[in-house]
């Protein structure tokens, strides 16, 4: 592979950068059209997300944010154009491949809650079992590891209803991290939380991005991206546009993490 890149680079610098950039990108969408039923929700969608980037996806309710996210995790297929996510070509994605795409994506959705009938650890073990983990000891170790990342190691054996809303959301994020995803898709992760707890969750997601996992977060809370640095994609009039490239998240300026 490396040899191939080398040969291409010798031939044409520009082509080399296009290929390498594209293969490196976690999400690469070109001229994508997304429909729900008969209706076109978004058209000519062009954007890419690189490893470790934190990207806000903003737009009004019903603007098509959710449809875009759905396409990214394989629930909707793109109608036109080309879309690659975590190495999967969404145009050629077969339904049997969808589970394997999702194992590389962590999902933090408002309506994707913990299972209330089992403990935090059981929730995590349930996901690990469902994604092909076999050894109990490794599963428990991984569960404690991700809970440690979100600062809830002591709550491993509590029931979800014994945790606060913010803590539950942190467990949801821990669950999303279980299989070392390359991308976290978050849809209104702070939707039901008070401003203080929202900030806490945002800091956590930012820290995850710093570790190299790309985060795409849909929100309609405009105050959030004023306080936290990140790229901003705006969904409006059936199109997606980049608001400003200047506000890129700077990992060395970590005042937001304090």
């Amino acid at each position: 592979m490396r040899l191939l890149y080398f040969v291409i680079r010798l031939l044409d610098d520009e082509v080399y950068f296009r290929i390498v950039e594209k293969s490196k990108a976690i999400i690469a969408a070109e001229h994508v059209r997304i429909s729900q039923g008969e209706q076109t929700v978004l058209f000519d969608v062009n954007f890419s997300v690189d490893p470790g980037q934190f990207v806000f996806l903003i737009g009004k309710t019903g603007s098509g944010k959710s449809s875009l996210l759905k396409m990214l995790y394989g629930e909707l297929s793109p109608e036109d154009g080309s879309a690659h996510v975590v190495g999967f070509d969404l145009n050629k994605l077969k339904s049997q491949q969808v589970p394997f795409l999702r194992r590389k994506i962590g999902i933090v959705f408002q309506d994707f809650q913990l299972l209330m009938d089992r403990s935090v650890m059981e929730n995590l073990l349930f996901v690990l079992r469902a994604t092909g983990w076999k050894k109990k000891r490794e599963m428990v170790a991984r569960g404690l590891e991700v809970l440690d990342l979100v600062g809830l190691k002591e709550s491993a054996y509590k029931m979800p209803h014994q945790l606060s809303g913010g803590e539950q959301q942190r467990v949801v994020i821990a669950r999303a991290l279980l299989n070392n995803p390359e991308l976290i898709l978050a849809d209104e992760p702070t939707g039901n939380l008070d401003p203080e707890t929202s900030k806490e969750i945002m800091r956590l997601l930012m820290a995850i991005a710093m570790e190299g996992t790309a985060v795409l977060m849909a929100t309609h809370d405009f105050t959030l991206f004023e306080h936290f640095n990140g790229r901003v994609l705006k969904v409006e009039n059936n199109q997606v546009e980049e608001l400003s490239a200047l506000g890129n998240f700077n990992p060395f300026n970590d005042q937001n993490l304090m």
Partner: protein
Amino acid sequence: MAKLKRRNSSRGIQTSFVSIIVTVALMLTLLGLVITIVLGVDGLKTKVKEQIQIDLFFDATLNADDIKQIAEDVRVIEGISRAEFVSPERAWEEFQKISMDSKDSTSRVDLSLLDDVIPIPPSVSLSPTEEFASLQRLEQLERDLRHRYPQLEEFNYSEDMLNDVNLGFDKLIYLILLIAVLLLIITFALINNTIRLALYSQRFIIKTQQLVGATSGFIRKPFLAMAIVQGFIAAIFAMALLFGILYMVNNYLIDISPLIDFVMMLKLLGAVILLGILICLFATNVALSKYLRMRLDDLY
């Protein structure tokens, strides 16, 4: 509050488990009864077919001993289940019996009128095996016998009775099978519905698995395993009920014991267990496929 909810949801699953088993068990009992009737009628058909009587009459060149010998010989021919020599005396006795039974007393014949000579020649009485009890096979048998014994004059049997046995029983069996198919469809529809409800109560678990990337095989496995267990348990209940019904019918209504034997009961047991498991598996799989194909949004 949450604890209460939890208890309720697990009780919901138990209720659906029980209701699936009750539905399947009752339907399997009905299906089992139908199977019993089919097997019973089939047994009856065999018995009746083997009771079809064929009389062989030979020309005067053969004496009674020759015909006795023929009766011995034909017993080994394929397609013959029974063969016996009928002496003129026995034939006359039977003829008399038939005459006595008939109300027309004038038909009664006094042997003295015939100078004490029985007018019926000695004959061989045969019964075909079950598979030879059809018009075609009997014609074949007749040709075969005429070839072996050129002295054979008459090969007599009642064509009407043969047709009645064959067509009558077949019609009956087709009718019963039709009922069985209808029952199967009803069973399937009922179970499918019950299982869909049971799956609905598990939709969060299914959705979680789908969103984190479980393969559809992994999601299906526990439900299908449960279906096998349910089918088996339901089949056991159905068999208990079925044996109860058969016992009652046998003891209080009509004696069906000649039609029922151990092998048939084993067949019935096997069929009911197999049907129970297959019905549950199939219905669960159809309901699951529908569920897993649904868009995540439509789950709510």
